[in-house]
């Protein structure tokens, strides 16, 4: 079995999840704790990728980030090449499709947390970022961990948006889910079966580990 698609899927999902944490956790905290202009619009934009078909998502990204898109000149200037049909495109597609799941779960975790803990920390002279690291994040950890697991799961299974934006280039942008589709189309059912099983086992193992970490609350 060719392991390249599986390795690419893992890499794409890991990077997309890391980006998802960096963007999603602070955004979830803002949505849970602050009221600011545009909050409702952002809430809708966060949920939208969860309800749109991935093909619509991928097409939207293609229009936005593709050759004729408004962001293309900036991408060209930064990286010297376009985004479409590159492994980075697979990461972008997975990130956009999967991060909303992280945001929703983490936001729920923050909203369930009694704000008295954060207020108590403030009366004790601590700064907001220190409070987030020492009080908010540990106490909302279950929600955040569940969000990370969901995000990774969604990212590793991403198909539609990835196909639209990154294409199906074996050895370059062909992720496991696309390789399975490709194998079925070509009638290589044995290959599709082994790849599907491998993807299931790997994704299951990662989720199992994440669930254990999420339960690792110390009280």
């Amino acid at each position, binding site marked *: 079995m060719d392991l390249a698609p599986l390795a690419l899927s893992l890499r794409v999902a890991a990077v997309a999840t890391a980006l998802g944490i960096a963007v999603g956790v602070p955004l979830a905290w803002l949505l849970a704790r602050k009221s600011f202009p545009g909050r409702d619009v952002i809430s809708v934009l966060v949920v939208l990728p969860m309800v749109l078909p991935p093909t619509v998502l991928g097409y939207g990204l293609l229009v936005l980030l593709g050759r004729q898109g408004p962001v293309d000149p900036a991408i060209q200037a930064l990286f010297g090449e376009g985004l479409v049909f590159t492994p980075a495109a697979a990461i972008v597609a997975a990130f956009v499709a999967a991060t909303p799941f992280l945001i929703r779960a983490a936001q729920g975790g923050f909203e369930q947390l009694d704000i*008295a803990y954060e207020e108590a920390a*403030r009366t004790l002279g601590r700064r907001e970022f220190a409070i987030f690291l020492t009080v908010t994040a540990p*106490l909302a950890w279950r929600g955040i961990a569940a969000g990370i697991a969901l995000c990774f799961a969604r990212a590793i299974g991403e198909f539609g948006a990835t196909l639209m934006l990154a294409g199906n280039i074996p050895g370059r942008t062909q992720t496991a889910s696309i390789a399975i589709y490709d194998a079925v189309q070509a009638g290589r059912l044995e290959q599709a079966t082994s790849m599907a099983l491998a993807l299931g086992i790997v994704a299951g193992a990662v989720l199992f580990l994440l669930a254990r970490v999420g339960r690792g*609350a110390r*009280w």
Partner: protein
Amino acid sequence: MIIAVAVQRTLGSFRLHVAFAAPAGITALFGPSGSGKTLTLRSVAGLLRPDRGHVALGQRVLYDSASSLDLPTRDRRIGYVFQHYALFPHLSAAANIAYGLHDASSTDRSLRVKELLEMVGLAGFAERHPHELSGGQQQRVALARALAPRPALVLLDEPFAAIDSFVRDHLREQLRAIHVRTEVPMILVTHDIADVRRLADTVVLYGHGVALEVGPTADVLSRREVQIPAYPG
């Protein structure tokens, strides 16, 4: 030191409009539920921004709407014992108390934590987590945590409401003793007249969003004795 509080705040149909000045010592905000006592406490701590007003501890102004001064909570040096204590559930009693001592060296920090645990009578409980402590013990850890950074004022929101009645008297005595020892002024919110009688040097009598009367406890109580009902919990 005089604690001067004047705050106005409208929340929906409720209007808080109180003004009082109290000397150092223990001041009780006494009145029925929903009369604005906790809102007052939150305004003093900077957890609630009034629409307008003025809060000062002696010469130190914490909030003044006229000059747009609003010191953030972390800079006010005001300890707060929350009604349900808000002890950090993932931290031990010692770590809870040490939380506000982040600027101290680790030696100073552990000495201070030890001193406070002894002061509140919980020397052997340093490593217990909040869920392993009784209500009274949690209350004392919360008090120790509030006292740790040597605040200029300590606020206590219904400190005995969640405590079994047979240990309440003992805890009142202990609070009084800690006040005498630390000389930290305290403002406590209560709807229990026994707290006022046993603890308060000054009482602020609350009506619906207003301070009806302010003065030394003995004076206010003797004038008001007949009218003060036993507020239900």
